[in-house]
């Protein structure tokens, strides 16, 4: 069953078209990476799917909802979680408040259980639950964001460059948490700039070039495709 479906999609910012005639679909429980150079339209795909960027033409559905007519908060209530590029945390809230915000509609006892569960996933920060998010390092903030998303039990998790600017150790920490999300049966859509990083995590990779689909296939062949392609025609920002 398709949980994400994109058909002949055109979208952009004002007069600038970031995505052109894009089509793909993702099945339930699948882990897919969207790879491309700067300006290829990777983040725009994530923003379109969560309703943050309007569609010019074409169609996109998430969990059976047409994103053209469904507001962002309704998509989230249906089970989509989008962790935007950068952090995706409220820096003026504490760690536990950020986690509670994701689960605010649950009864109090269950909400506390979810906070404990998230703190277990984060591990090293369990004694700093009242610390404001702004006082955490970039890697720690992303761990909190992903763990709070996991305990909210999403059907589809959209992660936009979760490891950008992180050290190799922090990257491994974030990927470990994403593997835990996969083990919960979450459909994962990972936006990344490097094809080699996603091999162990995603079975399928979609490569975008200047807003258009360049490759859609197994991750182990995607790296070779990207390397060959970029050797012949180095990527340029649009």
């Amino acid at each position, binding site marked *: 069953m398709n949980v994400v479906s994109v058909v002949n999609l055109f979208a952009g910012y004002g007069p600038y078209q970031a995505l052109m005639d894009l089509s793909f679909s993702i099945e339930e429980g699948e882990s897919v990476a969207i790879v491309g150079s700067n300006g290829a339209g990777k983040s725009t795909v994530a923003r379109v799917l969560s309703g943050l960027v309007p569609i010019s033409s074409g169609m996109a559905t998430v969990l059976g909802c047409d994103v053209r007519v469904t507001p*962002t908060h309704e998509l989230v*209530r249906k089970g989509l*979680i989008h962790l*935007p590029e*950068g952090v995706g945390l*409220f820096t003026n809230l504490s760690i536990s408040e950020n986690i509670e915000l*994701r689960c605010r509609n649950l009864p109090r006892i269950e909400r506390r259980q979810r906070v404990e569960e998230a703190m277990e996933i984060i591990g090293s920060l369990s004694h700093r639950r009242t610390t404001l998010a702004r006082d955490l390092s970039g890697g720690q903030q992303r761990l909190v964001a992903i763990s709070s998303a996991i305990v909210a039990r999403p059907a589809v998790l959209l992660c936009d460059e979760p490891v950008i600017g992180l050290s190799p150790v922090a990257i491994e920490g974030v990927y470990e948490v994403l593997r835990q999300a996969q083990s919960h049966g979450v459909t994962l859509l990972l936006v990344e700039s490097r094809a080699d990083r996603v091999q162990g995590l995603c079975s399928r990779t979609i490569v975008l070039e200047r807003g258009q689909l360049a490759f859609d296939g197994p991750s182990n062949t995607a790296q070779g495709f990207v390397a060959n392609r970029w050797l012949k025609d180095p990527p340029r920002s649009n």
Partner: protein
Amino acid sequence: MNEFLSFAIGGLPFACSYALVAVGIVLTFRATGVFNFGFGAMAYGAGVTYVELCSHGVPSWLSLLIVTVVLAPVFGALLDWGLFRRIRTADLTSKVVTSLGLMVFLPSMVQIVIGSTTVYSAPAPFLSTYFTTLFGISISGPVIATLVTTIVVLMVMTLGLRSRRVGLTLRASVQSPRLVELHGVDSGKVLRNAWMVSSSLAALAGCLYAPQFATQNPSAYNVLLTGAVAAAALGAISSFTLAVAGGVLLGVLQGVIPGYLSPNSVWYGALVPSIPFFMLLIMLLTHRGFRSLDRSKDPMSVVEPPTAPPGLARRSEILGFSGRIVNWLAVVGLVIVAIIFVPEVWVGTLTIAASMAIIFLSVTLLTGLAGQLSLAQMVFAGMGAYGTARLSTHHHWSLGMSLIAGTMIASLGGLVASLPALRLRGLPLALLTLCFALLADNLIFPATFVGSGSSSIGVRRPDIFGVDFSGPFSRNYLVMVVAFLAMTTFGVRLLIHGTTGRMLTAAHSSEIAAASSGVPMRRTITIIFMLSAAVAGLGGGLYAIALGSLSTPDFNSALGPVLLVVVITMGAASVRGALIAGVAFVALPQALALAPSRFGGGGQSSAITIVVLSVGAFTYAQHPEGIVTFIQGRLKVAGLRVRNLRGDSR
């Protein structure tokens, strides 16, 4: 002890009103990021509506319900839908300007709607004739009713805000409405609810406040706003509990202190009204929370970028070099024709308009160029005016020397105001300058060594080289003021297009980047504050000479926000905006007064002028360049289209 308690109880109605509005301010600021300067005006509108309903025979309790439960939430929802939803991702400055527009626009609008007749007070909503005695202290029914109503409302609010569903969502919404949507929250609904609740709080405060005064006056509600702002400042506009505590503390102090002072003492008239301003001043200068008020950045600003700050709103020149020459020649020609041919009755108006245009140019310097929001420009103008008047009339200095000294006194005022500006920006700075303006209103201008208490000071006209400048319709004096205006305009243009202008524009983009590029930030900000105050002082001095006599209301602090909003409407980033604003601000009420009543003539001309000239504050987030530059841009686009069409037809 009984005496103390009876004085404290006397201050409780004020305490309740302060606490309610303070909670409304904190609520809207935390939920929407808007610091609503318009709450005083909203309370005034609610108070007047309550009084009007009572005067038409509606029972007072029912009037209160209609205003607070029906009309105020609808008004709040309309404000959200028509105004604040459109600027939810704008920067703090744009939000402050919009709320200042509301502060200026609403009272005038209320006056237009209800007419110019005086609105008398109404009975208290509940227990208006009840009296009781508790521990030997007599307490009136309205005080009990006000206290109980406020406690019940604040308890309900506290319970609601303590819940995770409401409280957390509110705190998250202020940082990023987009990100909160990604957490499954309908941010539009959160913002609308916040506006509806805070409008009801302002309306309740207005209805409880209205019976305290014999007649309803917007200035009384400005005092309510200032008290509430001071109360909210106790917790750096983020704590509901401290806002309520601040409101109660202020109200009780205002009840107790006058009780122990003689009504004839200097302290009674000066200190008591200044208590909120001192409290606000101390909090602004000492509370660390204010320094980080504007530093919370929206992590989703990439998706919906905020508008450019005012300094960056300056566009490249719309006209070419020859076009600019023709433009300025046309302006000079028009001024010469106006000076020679204008009827005598309009000479005085034009003289005052030209002096006001100089004062408006000070806003161009500080807000348009430096991007600092100052609500104290009228105080600097007042310093120049009183300095000129005092030195020329009481110390018999020559008028030229008095004018120079007045300008220097205003410049020193600017230096004092710039000291906190070195640490504060945006909203805290605007609040600080408001504080400065209100202190000047209460302590500086009424002092006998500055003004003459309640009486006015005469200002004589100059007599230079035998040329007569006397008389209210002196064309010679008009020429002199226009010459000063031309020189100031030239100087401000040089500053905008010179090194200082470039340094300030760079600082607008990023203060850190500008400082690392060698821009001396502290020195530049101090200089621009002093220059701006000097320009305002010069305009104030010329204005005082044009008036012929000075009294305290001529430089009322309430005019500060009006000045800022009018210049922003016309265009704070260009000298044209200030010049047109000055002429329109003075000439439009005169012209409207002469017009038939169906075209807005008669007693409402000043209110209509303010309404017309303040609407630009509501479009500031979308068009920070102002009406003048916007129209010029549109005209140029239309001209280019016509030219292209002609080219195509050939």
